[in-house]
């Protein structure tokens, strides 16, 4: 009978639809990231892999803040491990089976038992997270840039987690009760499948329910749980929560050099070499490939940034560790490294939407001024505290530097005092107006 297979067919449609929609979003993200300039991050594959295992998989930088770090590890481990159960749920859904891995016996009992305990710990952690965000006055969750959607987004994710965990435990409780009462399809000759260290405490609540009601309860919880997961998967694209996937590539492709080493602009090197070469003929005809449009210095919009910076914009989960370590932010300046990343993503999304409509990237808006102000950019001390603080290898400072380069090299728009210092450097090789010929005068002074 066709009708017997209806749940399975519905499930396959839901699963397929969710995967298709997700794939479409992934391709949008990929397209948007590839709008960025090229940067070579494909070297040192071993080193990169090890760093990814340590920092992304191993969460090594999370615990620098012990409370948030440990809670995060619980939710993370819970998320990863409970997903093993999702595999079973998907197979059961497609094949119409009940607890297909049940034949594993004691191993299965151990697994289901662990999932339950983890689900409970996740529930507790998520509630603490919610309290930290909404009740306790933790400064990094109160910043201006978190007002509105970012704050709601963070809470929606927490609500999602609560609902999913409660559904998971409800499903198990009903299933356990059905197995106990020997209901067909649920009953197993060899005994109870799975162990239920947490959901057993829910049995008194469902005690006295008929087998039919229990089946409805179990099926409802099962369906809502798996559909919840599929919705969550597709919510990621619209949320800061993409980090659960992108943290891995972001750490892999992150900067391996000393934090103090800022990138060299090769286009400038060629020009400076030409200027300093006494044999160069300043009036010589430019060679063949000089016909190209000269590269724009620095960044005024997202497509001037490199793909790694754009990947990072999608990866940022807005935790604000960067901002809370930022000396400019701590002293009340407008600069917030987290906002730099959020603005970059918002602008990139805006550009992406234009492209979706088949339009060109419009030039009436850009990252500079429309999203990130000059005041923010000039407040940075380039101290690298934000870069060091990021648990997943994001480098907001590199974006600030690229935008400063645009301001100075394309617009000559440095603050006046900086122009003074720079003209001193140009004229007398020091940022102050001292004569280079006096540079050794200190040696003649009294010791």
């Amino acid at each position, binding site marked *: 009978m066709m009708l017997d297979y209806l749940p399975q067919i519905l499930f396959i449609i839901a699963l397929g639809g969710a995967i298709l929609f997700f794939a479409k979003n992934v391709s949008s993200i990929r397209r948007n990231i590839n709008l960025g300039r090229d940067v070579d991050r494909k070297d040192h594959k071993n080193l990169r892999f090890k760093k990814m295992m340590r920092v992304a998989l191993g969460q090594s930088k999370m615990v620098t803040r012990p409370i948030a770090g440990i809670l995060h590890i619980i939710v993370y481990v819970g998320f990863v491990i409970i997903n093993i159960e999702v595999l079973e749920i998907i197979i059961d859904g497609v094949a119409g089976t009940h607890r297909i891995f049940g034949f594993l016996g004691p191993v299965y009992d151990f697994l289901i038992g662990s999932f339950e305990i983890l689900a409970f710990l996740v529930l507790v952690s998520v509630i603490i997270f919610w309290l930290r965000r909404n009740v306790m006055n933790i400064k990094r969750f109160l910043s201006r840039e978190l007002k509105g959607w970012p704050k709601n987004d963070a809470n929606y994710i927490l609500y999602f987690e609560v609902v999913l965990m409660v559904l998971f435990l409800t499903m198990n409780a009903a299933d356990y009760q059905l197995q106990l009462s020997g209901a067909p399809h649920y009953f197993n000759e060899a005994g109870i499948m799975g162990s239920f260290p947490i959901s057993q405490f829910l049995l008194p609540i469902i005690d006295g329910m008929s087998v039919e009601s229990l089946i409805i309860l179990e099926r409802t919880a099962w369906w809502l749980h798996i559909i919840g997961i599929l919705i969550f998967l597709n919510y990621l694209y619209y949320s800061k929560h993409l980090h659960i996937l992108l943290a891995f590539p972001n750490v892999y492709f992150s900067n391996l050099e000393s934090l103090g*080493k800022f990138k060299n602009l090769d286009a400038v090197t060629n020009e400076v070499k030409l200027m300093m070469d006494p044999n160069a003929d300043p009036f010589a005809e430019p060679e063949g490939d000089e016909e190209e449009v000269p590269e724009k210095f620095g960044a005024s919009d997202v497509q001037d940034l490199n793909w790694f910076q754009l990947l990072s914009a999608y990866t940022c989960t807005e935790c604000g560790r960067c901002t809370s370590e930022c000396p400019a932010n701590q*002293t009340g300046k407008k600069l917030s490294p987290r906002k730099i990343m959020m603005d970059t993503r918002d602008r990139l999304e805006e550009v992406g939407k234009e492209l979706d409509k088949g339009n060109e990237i419009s030039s009436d808006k850009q990252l500079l001024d429309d999203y990130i102000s000059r005041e923010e950019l000039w407040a940075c001390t380039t101290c690298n505290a934000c870069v060091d603080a990021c648990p997943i290898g994001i480098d907001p400072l590199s974006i600030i530097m690229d935008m400063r*380069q645009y301001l100075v090299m394309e617009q000559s728009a440095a603050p006046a005092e900086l122009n003074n210092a720079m003209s001193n450097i140009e004229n007398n090789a020091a940022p102050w107006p001292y004569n280079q010929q006096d540079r050794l005068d200190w040696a003649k002074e009294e010791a």
Partner: protein
Amino acid sequence: MSDKMNVPTMASYLAEGKQPEVLFWVGCAGSFDDRAKKITKAFVKILNNINVDFAVLGTEEGCTGDPAKRAGNEFLFQMQAMTNIEVLNGYEVKKIVTACPHCFNTIKNEYPALGGNYDVVHHTQFLKQLLNEGRLKVEGGKFKGKRITYHDPCYLGRANGEYEAPRDLLRKLEVELVEMKSCKSKGLCCGAGGAQMFKDAEKGDKEVNIHRTEQAVEVKPEVIAAGCPFCNTMMTDGVKNKEKQDDIEVLDVVEMIANAEDL
């Protein structure tokens, strides 16, 4: 100790056909700033005292370009860098020591891409090397038992991962080393980096150097030890702002070593 410093230049060494063990890169602050010049002199006194064979570029030295690069002026940075590299390579310089973390970082990390490859060390790292080789002796002296806190310069610490050399030297002075709330990889900036030294700060609640000084004052030190001429200026200003200049001195690690021995 004689009050006459011996500061040979690379030009004079070349004239004699000699190559020094190390080039001392003095930097703009170390050359011109009155406070920073004291750090330069303290370092030279130590080098002279233990007969380290060094030379300076003198009038052939120019700004490394660090503030220009961090202000966004890559063009000016590379002009400075290539001019300096031409001079350094002309003298076939192999090893460079500098008392400025900004010069240190720039020459070490950003000159190689432009053809300048040298073994670059910060003066605290250099002194630590001398100590390990037994050429430098550091003992308690006048700072023994004093309460000292060390301020990590961003461009020595976070940027290049050197947290221990300056602390090891301080421990050799047998001081009571106390750490501020933010230290080492979490060290708080003094507010001078990224060319901020040469401009007014953006609008905010307070200056970064005051914020950092407050962290230092909290641990009640007798001396704030620094390893950067710009941090030194910022912290000195901060201490004055807090009217603590009678209780708290701001000294470079190398000044403390020199003072401990009454050099």
